[in-house]
């Protein structure tokens, strides 16, 4: 209890800011009453979002688990809405994280290959640098034709989007590893593979933190981009489906769900990286205590 109060006090300002943002939205919704189509306000107030909109998400429930879908003739229900949110979220999140994992791994390996030897540099550097410049969103339709509109196509797309960022991040970070640590490892008898595992990888991690955070953002954009064009499920599919009927409120709710998930993944990553970066002099640094 004491801990809770302390947390609340510490975050008081942040909480107030959050409430203020919600308040401004509510005020906007009463001032600006224009509608996209009759009955669909451009700025849906919270009273709409938390009743009609939430309920309407049950339209995207495809049935099962003993909860009949709207398409089968059942009325809208909060249970179906909740299940539909979970169902579509799981699809999107799995696509996102499998893509992130594969893209991160492949991008990092290619990035390290650039500094591994003159030969690997010659083989890897130019092709990947060229691939990197292809505009991500322009590639969505091509990826769909190449890899299909199912799971593989989306994973490939997210993996590509994230992979090129990891590649650039790793190439740059490896350049900044102080030579002294590599020399020290060599004179202590480390092999090249051991140097990469025990010196290069830990040394680049502080710099890679920014890249990983960036790639989380790009990953979300990529998976939505992939779902916009040809998916039968996922949060991106819900958005694009809502757009056809100008259901602004539904899009807004899905956007809020994104914020929720993204915040969780940032928080988890932050905890994890803090653990891994205990050794840095900057651990827990604050520029000035107020």
């Amino acid at each position, binding site marked *: 209890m004491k801990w809770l109060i302390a947390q609340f006090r510490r975050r008081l300002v942040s909480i107030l800011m959050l409430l203020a943002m919600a308040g401004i939205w509510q005020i906007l919704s009463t001032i600006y009453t224009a509608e996209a189509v009759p009955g669909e306000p451009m700025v849906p107030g919270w009273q709409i979002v938390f009743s009609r909109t939430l309920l309407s998400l049950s339209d995207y429930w495809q049935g099962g688990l003993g909860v009949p879908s709207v398409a089968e003739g059942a009325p809208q229900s909060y249970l179906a809405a909740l299940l539909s949110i979970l169902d579509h979220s799981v699809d999107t999140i799995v696509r996102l994280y499998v893509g992130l994992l594969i893209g991160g791994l492949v991008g990092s390996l290619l990035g390290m290959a650039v500094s591994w030897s003159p030969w690997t540099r010659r083989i890897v550097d130019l092709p990947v640098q060229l691939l990197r410049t292809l505009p991500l969103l322009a590639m969505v339709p091509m990826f769909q034709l190449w890899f299909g509109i199912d799971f593989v196509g989306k994973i490939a797309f997210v993996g590509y989007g994230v992979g090129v960022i990891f590649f650039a991040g790793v190439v740059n970070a490896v350049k900044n590893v102080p030579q*002294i640590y590599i020399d020290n*490892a060599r*004179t*202590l008898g*480390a092999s090249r593979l051991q140097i990469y595992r*025990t010196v290069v990888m830990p040394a680049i991690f502080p710099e890679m933190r920014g890249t990983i955070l960036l790639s989380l953002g790009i990953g979300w954009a990529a998976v939505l981009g992939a779902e916009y064009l040809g998916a039968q499920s996922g949060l991106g599919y819900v958005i694009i489906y809502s757009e056809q009927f100008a259901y602004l409120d539904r899009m807004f709710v899905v956007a809020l769900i994104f914020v929720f998930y993204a915040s969780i993944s940032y928080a988890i990553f932050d905890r994890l990286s803090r653990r891994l970066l205990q*050794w840095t002099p900057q651990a827990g640094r604050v520029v000035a205590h107020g």
Partner: protein
Amino acid sequence: MARAADGRDVIVASNLSRTFRRADRQMVTALDDVTFGIDRGQFVCLVGPSGCGKSTLLKLIAGLMLPSSGALEVEGESVTQPGPERGMVFQQDSVFPWLRVIDNVEYGLKCRGVGRAERRKSAEFYLERVGLSHVARAWPRELSGGMLKRVAVATVFANGANVLLLDEPFGAVDYVTKRNLHDVLLALWTEAGSTERRTVVFVTHDVDEALILADRILVMHSGRIVDDLAVTAPRPRTTDGLMEPTMVRHKHVLLAHLGLENLQGDAKAPTGGEGTEP
């Protein structure tokens, strides 16, 4: 100037040269046709003004750099790359900040597949010898500059190198810390007994440091070895010992080589040719 190699030598350099191409495309000779041999178990200091090639020579022995011409052998084998039998302590901090102190000391042993219990024992032993047992589990960032140097020294000793190469290791620490580090280093070096002592090559520009540490001082200038002094004073050497007549003479010679004073009295001319060999 330095005597040529003979059968007992651990390190043998013959006509060793190293040139660099500077950014302005000028060729610079850092090491110019150097020939010498270093005895097993000897503590050798390389002294000279900055830019004289002493660090280049050390990097060549370490295998971090390859010669432009000439031959370099350690334990009868040509040096082509770094190896754990040649340990190095650098001028900058080389302790890995992402490993705890004890894991740093174990690092080389771990790389070579030494079992966990054995390498931990060795690391604990050398940490104790350099007086750092109490910070074994600390992060390097929590240590002072002098303590980090002790970690680096413990690491090369734990790694079992036969040849220790130290590149101005204590150049950046204060005087008191430096004297303590000399004691630590000499204690570790002497305790092996004169037959199993490790060979040490210690680069410095500090004349007193060289006189306290060395059996032999090689003086370098413009990429060449220009003098070779044998320091036979008994150990342990003290500040008082540095005031003995022979030591004072050595000091005059060294300072003259560094261009700090003109030779007076019975000190020999730096380019005189005979040196002060035994």
